[in-house]
């Protein structure tokens, strides 16, 4: 049994809480949120002990691990405090608003030897995992170019402002949507280290961008394009696609489908020359409890297993999430 607490019971926090609540290896010791209505409802109908002040919760409940799903601007302070106490940390994406702060946390986590994870859940989706295996095996040959895209209907008209519409608090399409794509590109292709040009466009939002377009380059000199727009109502929900073009073939992958084209018959087992189409049900691994997608349960299972010494902690670490933060920072600095 691992003793777990949650800080921040918004959309992602509540979702994590439900998965943790159904997890056989987890005991939830406390939930902290500043919203009275959230703690009131949880206090009344669930069995979790709720707190308005997370520091009081830490003091009283002494958790071994904490999930941080508070607004991004608080990540730095909260995570630092947790690391100093030697607590294992799962923090929602994006990691930190400030790259220096993030770098400090990466070092501190190493020093303390705790398990760390950031909620880039795409890495736990079967189709992206298969794409990773194929790319790493060299099946696409020398990679020439990649395209990372995400579209969805978050802000489709002018509306009231929340923290998501304030750049200083971690709002905007770059931090919320594009971060997923950048993280996935870093993982699937190679770490991005140059941004050759970027456009951050507001469509409906007053203070933040609703779309991000950028030209990217990886540390091994591969070129790529980023195209992300959260004001696209032709999508029912967020849809993330990565295309990778190599000299032996081409791969197009999203959360439900992987399409791969091989130029000749010399391709991996179970694949043939020409187009191959695989679906998530070919790869999805069974989970004990399902909410919104296998990946949300799988990433939590993995975090708990790593704490219990049953898995190696090398996926979605602070270090990989910090790399994503640094690309976000470069895009902000390059924007035209």
């Amino acid at each position, binding site marked *: 049994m691992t003793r777990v607490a949650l800080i921040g019971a918004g959309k992602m926090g509540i979702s994590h809480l439900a998965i943790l609540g159904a997890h056989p290896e987890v005991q939830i010791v406390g939930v902290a949120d500043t919203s009275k209505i959230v703690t009131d409802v949880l206090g009344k*109908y669930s069995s979790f002990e709720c707190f308005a002040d997370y520091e009081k919760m830490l003091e009283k409940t002494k958790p071994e691990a904490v999930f941080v799903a508070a607004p991004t601007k608080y990540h730095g302070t909260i995570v630092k405090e947790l690391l100093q106490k030697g607590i294992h940390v799962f923090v929602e994406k994006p990691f930190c608003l400030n790259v220096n702060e993030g770098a400090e946390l990466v070092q501190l986590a190493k020093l303390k030897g705790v398990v760390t994870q950031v909620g880039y859940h795409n890495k736990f989706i079967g189709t992206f995992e298969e794409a990773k295996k194929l790319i790493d095996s060299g099946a696409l040959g020398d990679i020439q170019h990649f395209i990372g895209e995400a579209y969805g209907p*978050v802000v489709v008209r002018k509306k009231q402002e*929340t923290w998501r519409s304030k750049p200083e608090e971690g709002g905007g399409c770059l931090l919320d949507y594009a971060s997923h794509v950048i993280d996935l590109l870093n993982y699937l292709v190679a770490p991005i280290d140059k941004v050759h040009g970027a456009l951050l466009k507001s469509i409906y939002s007053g203070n933040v961008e609703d779309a991000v377009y950028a030209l990217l380059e990886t540390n091994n000199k591969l070129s790529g394009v980023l195209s992300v727009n959260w004001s696209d109502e*032709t999508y*029912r929900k967020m849809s993330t696609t990565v295309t990778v073009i190599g000299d032996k073939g081409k791969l197009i992958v999203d959360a*439900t489908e992987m399409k791969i084209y091989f130029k000749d018959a010399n391709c991996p087992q179970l694949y043939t020359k020409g187009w191959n189409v695989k679906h*998530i049900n070919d790869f*999805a691994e*069974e*989970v004990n409890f399902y909410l919104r997608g296998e990946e949300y349960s799988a990433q939590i299972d993995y975090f708990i297993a790593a704490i219990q010494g049953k898995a190696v902690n090398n996926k979605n670490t602070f270090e990989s999430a910090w790399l994503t933060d640094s690309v976000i920072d470069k895009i902000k600095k390059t924007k035209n």
Partner: protein
Amino acid sequence: MDRILYGDNQFFGVNHVSDEKSRAQMMKFKEDKTILKTIDIAIEEGVNTFMCTTHDRISNICDLIRQNQGNYTNLKIYPCMPYAHKYANAVTELGIVGTLKEYVPGNFFGSLFKGGLAFVSKDYMSMMELLIDAEMKMFKGIETPVIFIQNVLTDLIMGLGMKDVLKSYHEYIIKKYNAEPGYITMNMPMLLNMLESVGIKNPIICSSINIDGFRMSGGKALYEQTLKTKQVRAIAMQVLSGGATPVKQAIEYVCSLPNVESILFGASSRGNIHETVSLIRRFDEQKLVSK
């Protein structure tokens, strides 16, 4: 419940195994009349129950059904609420409180905030009732003998251990709508245990049940064991598990299971609707004969 229920995922681009197919379906079913025509095909095939989400466009379909009531005398609708993406996108944009302000009808929420929370907090259940009523409005005058909560909400409530919320929902559906409450879930065995623990017996539970074990949390064996040994009125959905196994084999499997009272399917062409319906009938008949 009827043996065969016709679903609505295909109309709104809900496809669990292909985003691309989902977009193609959204284009195909752009017009409400195209949706209604496809429902008509299902009715011609002898399917009289339409199970659908409380999507905005269902409201238009209900209008069309009311306008042509003569053609739909035997049609029943099983509403499934809420249409979760509406709320999920709203929460991303407005936060939880902002979303409630936007969707809880009337000035209920306004007064809740004005008066402070503490003294009205016992009213969370009436807030749920108001939300249910708001979602149910579109079905006025149409027979809705079973009313479902969508899996994302059922499973969220279950994971949070909020048993009493499920119980209140159950009681409200019976009391207010004189209908049977149903539950959609991705975690059928776990849900059944929780419902039983609050005294809900032999509930209607709709979940993925398929030969491939796709989205059957806890495993196919646990589902089969639950169906064999416990009291549940199961509805099998995702029986084709998104297209991995040949249709015939997939349907034969589901038809062979005990306690699967109904099978929910979605298809958008006459050929596929006919094929699925005929296969279910054929395997059901074979089962009867072999008994």
